[in-house]
């Protein structure tokens, strides 16, 4: 038993620490591309244990990397500088669903979809719905400020976090926000911790705002002959003051990937498709759907499917869910970037991506949450080809540059982590980055908590 393991065992018990080669290997990755072996894995079961681990790590100057489902795409849960992976999956209790105040109190390891199922049984609604919601955890969602298709209408994770219990890098347990919608006492630390990617603190209890569950929804699938028609329709719907619950976009290349894998017949001449879902009062939905159809009319629409039943709606969403796996099968290596632009700039961004694909000679497949400007850009490639890595890097940089130029962002919902750290200065000024780093240094002077993330250099540059 190593001395690190012995010290950790004294904190959480022998059964919840492991340093075996096997566990170090299998906790060495997340859903992204990186691989870094930790020295130990610890399963915490309470805030007190998390705090004790942080204090011990501070004393030993060993990094701590908090981890939920390990479903992040940018390396947020990777032990870049070794140290301890602190698994929070066993803190998975829904502590409270308050139907009078419309809020839920949960531990970080609760799976997003599980929370949604439980609140929906009570007629309530937790909107953020990242694609990984069936297995991602609320703690991870909070750390990365997860989004999803419904964000166009309902906003992202930060819009639902009312309060947090947080273990600080020094191992103290603090509380931010509370159980009220209004609260202006002191700094808004809740918002500081949401999206901090586990670098400033570890949320051990999360108070979430809930909404009443919408009574009904109506799903429409629209086919366009041109990509411009679809892109302009997105802007037109929003500027017509219609905010759909979801507004998803798929380009020609995306449709080619899923043709034959869905029960829905996709016309050959179809250059792009939109899925528009409106929700709310049942009586109101038909009118809202008609308004959407009126706005898109004349914009190269060549066909539409309006789901009248739950099954028909499910068929449309099944088609959308078929996209990611189908796209991944097109090439040995696939880079998934989640840029976001102001919604009115979608047509420009899409045209820019098409040009970049032609110029670079690399296929790009675009789809995603167009309604909030968030486009998933999949670059399909084979890294075994000589010089390919450099070509992909150059293309990604051009994609990011285009998003920033249109006053968008290089990441809408995946976070910076390890994967995007080197592009940070494309979007943020040196002073902005310096401000963030000052904050990090003040709160975590020894860079114990999730080092090597967001900023290019991690623990060895202090």
């Amino acid at each position, binding site marked *: 038993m190593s001395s690190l393991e012995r010290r950790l065992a004294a904190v959480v018990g022998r059964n919840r620490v492991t340093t075996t080669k096997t566990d170090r290997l299998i906790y060495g990755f997340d*859903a992204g591309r990186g691989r870094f072996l930790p020295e130990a894995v610890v399963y915490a079961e309470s805030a007190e244990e998390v705090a004790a681990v942080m204090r011990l790590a501070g004393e030993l100057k060993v990094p701590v990397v908090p981890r939920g489902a390990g479903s992040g795409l940018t390396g947020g849960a990777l032990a870049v500088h070794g140290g301890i992976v602190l698994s929070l999956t066993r803190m998975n209790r829904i502590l409270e669903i308050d139907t009078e105040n419309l809020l839920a109190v949960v531990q970080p390891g609760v799976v997003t979809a599980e929370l949604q199922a439980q609140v929906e049984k009570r007629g309530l609604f937790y909107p953020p719905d990242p694609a990984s919601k069936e297995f991602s955890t609320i703690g991870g969602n909070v750390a990365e400020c997860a989004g999803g298709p419904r964000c166009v209408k309902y906003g992202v994770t930060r819009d639902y976090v009312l309060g947090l219990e947080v273990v600080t890098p020094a191992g103290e347990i603090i509380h931010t926000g509370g159980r009220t919608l209004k609260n202006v006492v002191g700094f808004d630390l809740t918002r500081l911790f949401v999206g901090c990617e586990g670098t400033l603190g570890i949320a051990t209890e999360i108070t979430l705002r809930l909404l009443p569950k919408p009574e009904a929804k109506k799903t429409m699938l629209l086919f366009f002959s041109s990509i411009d028609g679809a892109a302009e329709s997105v802007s037109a719907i929003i500027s017509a003051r219609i905010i759909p619950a979801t507004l998803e976009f798929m380009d020609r290349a995306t449709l080619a990937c899923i043709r034959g894998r869905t029960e829905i017949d996709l016309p050959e001449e179809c250059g792009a498709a939109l899925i528009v879902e409106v929700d709310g009062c049942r009586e109101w939905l038909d009118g809202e759907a008609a308004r959407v159809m009126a706005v898109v009319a004349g914009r190269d629409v060549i066909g539409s499917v309006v789901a009248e039943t739950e099954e028909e709606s499910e068929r449309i969403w099944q088609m959308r869910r078929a996209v990611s796996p189908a796209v991944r099968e097109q090439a040995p290596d696939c880079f998934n970037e989640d840029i976001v632009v102001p919604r009115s700039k979608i047509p420009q961004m899409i045209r820019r991506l098409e040009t970049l694909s032609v110029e670079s000679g690399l296929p790009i497949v675009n789809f995603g949450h167009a309604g909030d400007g968030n486009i998933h850009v999949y670059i399909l490639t084979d890294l075994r080809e000589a010089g390919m890595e450099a070509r992909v890097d150059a293309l990604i940089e051009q994609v990011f540059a285009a998003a920033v130029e249109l006053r968008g962002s290089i990441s809408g919902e995946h976070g910076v982590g390890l994967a995007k750290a080197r592009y940070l200065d494309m979007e943020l000024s040196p002073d902005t980055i310096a401000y963030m780093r000052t904050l990090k240094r003040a709160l975590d002077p020894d860079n114990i908590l999730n080092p090597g993330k967001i900023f290019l250099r991690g623990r060895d540059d202090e």
Partner: protein
Amino acid sequence: MNNVLVQKTPGRHNVLEDFADAIQRCVRCGACQAYCPAWSAGRREGDVARGKVAVAAAMLAGELGRGAELESAARQDISLCLMCGSCTCGCPNDVPTAEIVGAIRREVAAEAGLSAVGVGVAALLGSKTLMRGVAAAGAALAPLMMEKVPESSGLRLRFPLDRLPAVGERILPAPAGKSLFARLPERIEGQPGRPKVAFFAGCAITWLFPQIGEKMVEVLVRLGCTVYLPKGQGCCGMPALSSGDGPLVSRLASANVRAFAPLNVDYIITACASCGSGIGEYYHTMGGDSAILAKKVVDFTVFLEEEGVCERLAALPRAVKRQKVCWHDPCHLKNRGILAPPRHLLAALPGVDFVEMEGASRCCGLGGTFSVHHSEESLLIGEKKVEGVQECGAELVATACPGCVMQLETSLCRAGLPARAVHLLELFGEAELAALAND
């Protein structure tokens, strides 16, 4: 001729190297967490498919030892798998984790002995005394009965007398006086022009639940089929597969090929989802004659639906007194895409009000020998399963796998719920049987 069984070779088992491409296909997205019953019990990376595939990848890359040299923590992870295949159903890239786990278990067992596979090393999480009292359990399973069960039967792996959990933890089936083969002839002539079918009974139906087998044969006879019940048939091999005993699986496959090949039937019917998966799916991966046999295997729910049984049942007047019944998808039906036929049958039964339960396709937690080696996890998974039964208010949970019936009974009983678990065929009474007659 591709479809003729020539009794040459039972085929061979895949080894870890055969899965190199499949292992590469895992993109580590973590989606398997949403489907894996072992993950829901332990919530460690090593519990879930992604972790096990990472172990397999590390073995192939030379980062972890092979066979007897495999680190005990890795063995524990490989042991903690119900081989239910749920992860593959939810996997965007169809990584066959259960098959990969099977290959690793065979590799470890071949080098380090069978006990190296199932026996968990000191459990990581919580204080677990996996095996508790033994003596009382032995009595419950009627050792006399077990004497009649062949050495090669999966029942000996599922209910090893020296390793059973204490009585009161688990419902064990009451022993049957006469096995299925002692109750029925080997061949029952049907009507001309009707299908010739063979019934593959499997160990649980043969020795523990012969009444289900009798009902199956009765249904087939009423449908006018010529029914064969070859006595030479043995265990399908699933428990042996789960234990990593490749040679035993091969022996059983050979025996089954010998028993069924000469009959030249149209279909081999199973009424146990696991057996169907064993002789229908696993034999397929072995190639050779086993794969040819596998092609004829049909689950009874599929066969009955194709024979128009749903329509005939639906034409019966609805019973005045009906029972609220929900359906549990055995993993080994779900994985073969058999979701609708049993539901259609249930909905058509005149004495049944069919209700869908939440988590119908969630594993019950039995997982072959998993419940023996990982009793505590198995019971935990079962606990989650029956929450859905309670919520939907069903009086009966119907399923199509005797193993699931036993596990569900255990879980319902432990949760103090009044609902009972039954095999779907047990819901066929005289009125239902009469409706099947062709004349």
